[in-house]
């Protein structure tokens, strides 16, 4: 007790924090919050790929392979697994960028708390985004591990699915942060899940090639990050890389990340600085 009130030496100007320390302190907070729930999450992130692999890869895949001899000359399992890696990255990214972010904005108002300290707005944004990236990495590693055990990947190129999935997740994380910061309540998330997430999952060349869609619908797939993530991951996993296409896919994903960051910073400023 005495030191608390006699700690005068601590007063006055302290050396200012480095950007790494600032972002690190926010990341630490997000990890502390997640420590309570990580066991449950790992469990569900382990089970959901198993379900998917059983249903799509083995169940549906058996049918497709018997009747059509696979897709694009490869077994259905090899076709669909890299796509599900990307879909799952999208799910995790969106799940972690909606309710938890709105909670920090308006329920526990942790962002306001952070803004009362030496942290800057972009520190708390970067720290939280990094925490989401951590979730995406964890989920992707688990999925890829499980899928590999099921024989889901024909080549070692599949290892590259991991960074591509993380990039795909990020391409969703930042725009969704921007979206969330404009919500007054969580009702908007239902629309996001029903009108964006589900159609994207179904029509981005995940379960069947985009070429199967009516021609007018195909361009829609081209402008969504998921299609690019799926195509890039699939090419790498199947060992069918076409460098210009790969660069295009990755370039689109990076563009979503960069533009998303600008939008997120703008919405956060509008929402939090009053």
């Amino acid at each position, binding site marked *: 007790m005495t030191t608390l009130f006699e700690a005068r030496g*601590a*007063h006055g*100007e302290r050396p200012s924090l480095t950007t790494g320390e600032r972002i690190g302190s926010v990341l630490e*907070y997000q990890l502390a919050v997640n420590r309570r729930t990580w066991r449950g999450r790992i469990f569900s992130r382990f089970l959901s790929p198993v379900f998917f692999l059983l249903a799509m890869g083995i169940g549906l895949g058996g049918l497709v392979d018997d009747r059509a001899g696979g897709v694009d000359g490869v077994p259905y399992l090899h076709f669909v697994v890299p796509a599900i890696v990307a879909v799952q990255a999208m799910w995790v990214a969106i799940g972690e960028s909606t309710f938890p972010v709105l909670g920090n904005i308006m329920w*526990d108002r*942790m962002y306001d708390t952070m803004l009362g300290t*030496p*942290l800057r707005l972009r520190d708390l944004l970067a720290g939280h985004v990094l925490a989401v990236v951590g979730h995406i990495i964890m989920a992707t590693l688990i999925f890829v591990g499980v899928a590999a055990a099921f024989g889901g990947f024909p080549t070692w190129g599949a290892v590259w699915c991991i960074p591509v999935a993380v990039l795909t997740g990020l391409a969703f994380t930042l725009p969704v942060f921007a979206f969330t910061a404009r919500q007054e309540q969580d009702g908007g998330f239902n629309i996001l899940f029903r009108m964006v997430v589900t159609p994207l999952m179904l029509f981005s060349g995940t379960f069947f090639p985009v070429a199967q869609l009516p021609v007018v619908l195909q361009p829609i797939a081209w402008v969504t990050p998921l299609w690019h993530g799926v195509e890039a991951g699939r090419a790498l996993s199947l060992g069918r890389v076409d460098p210009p296409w790969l660069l295009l896919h990755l370039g689109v994903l990076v563009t979503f990340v960069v533009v998303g960051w600008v939008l997120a910073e703008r919405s956060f400023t509008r929402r939090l600085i009053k």
Partner: protein
Amino acid sequence: MTGDTPDGDLLLRARGLTKTFGDFTAVDGVDFAVRRGEAFGFLGPNGAGKSSTMRMIGAVSPPSGGELRIFGLDPSTDGPRIRARLGVVPQQDQLDQELTVEENLWVYGRYFGLSRSQVRERAVELLEFAQLTERAKDKVEPLSGGMKRRLTIARSLISAPELLLLDEPTTGLDPQARHLLWDRLFRLKRQGVTLILTTHYMDEAEQLCDRLVVMDHGRIVAEGSPRQLIEQHSTREVLELRFDTDDHAEYAGKVAGVGERVEVLPDRLLVYAHDGDAAAAEVHSRGIEPLSSLVRRSTLEDVFLHLTGRTLVD
């Protein structure tokens, strides 16, 4: 101490400070200055603009107009440097309900760049201070309102701030916890910590504040030490009269001229007079029979009532 306050011991200066939200002006061109080591208070009815002012001082809410310097720095360009030296108790507790009591302190200390061992060490002292040691490992969510308030106050001290901003610090605290906090704040002040607080309790303002301003509708309507304010805006004594009526305004005319001024409250009349006993005798000699009459000294409450037309706690 740091040589960055050009006005000598002035820690904070506001000139024409304004805050607007859309068309609405919440803070309307206020001027004030706070010296190092001082305890400075904002009094004012709900919506007067106290919290809006505090948030500008806390370098989280950008001023819409006027000039503000904190530690000689401009909050619009040096926000992080200013905030590194502040301790903030917002009007509403913003604690992470999912984390434990001690985790809330650790995490917060890290935002200021304190090391892990520093935050752990200080958390122990601060929990002692807030009388929450037994609850250190409990989640915040089930704590009582007053305990959460104490935790928020403890948290604001983790960075050993030189300026402490307290927005209604003791709202929700029981009398024992309030007195304990006053004692702690006194000690901090003796150590040279500058305090800026808002309150709806006049005893708190009188106890803690060297100087205070009364705000109403975004403007400062009076400024001075508690004693000066009472001298300037009230009489030495007050005669309180209660009558057997639903409307005390009926009796206002009858006692007119007894003191310098009469104030009508829903449940009593306040007669402001230099000599309260003499005023009571005068009421009696006019043949007016109150249910009860009481003479007391003027307090800040009377100043507040006179300046804003409202009681402090409403």
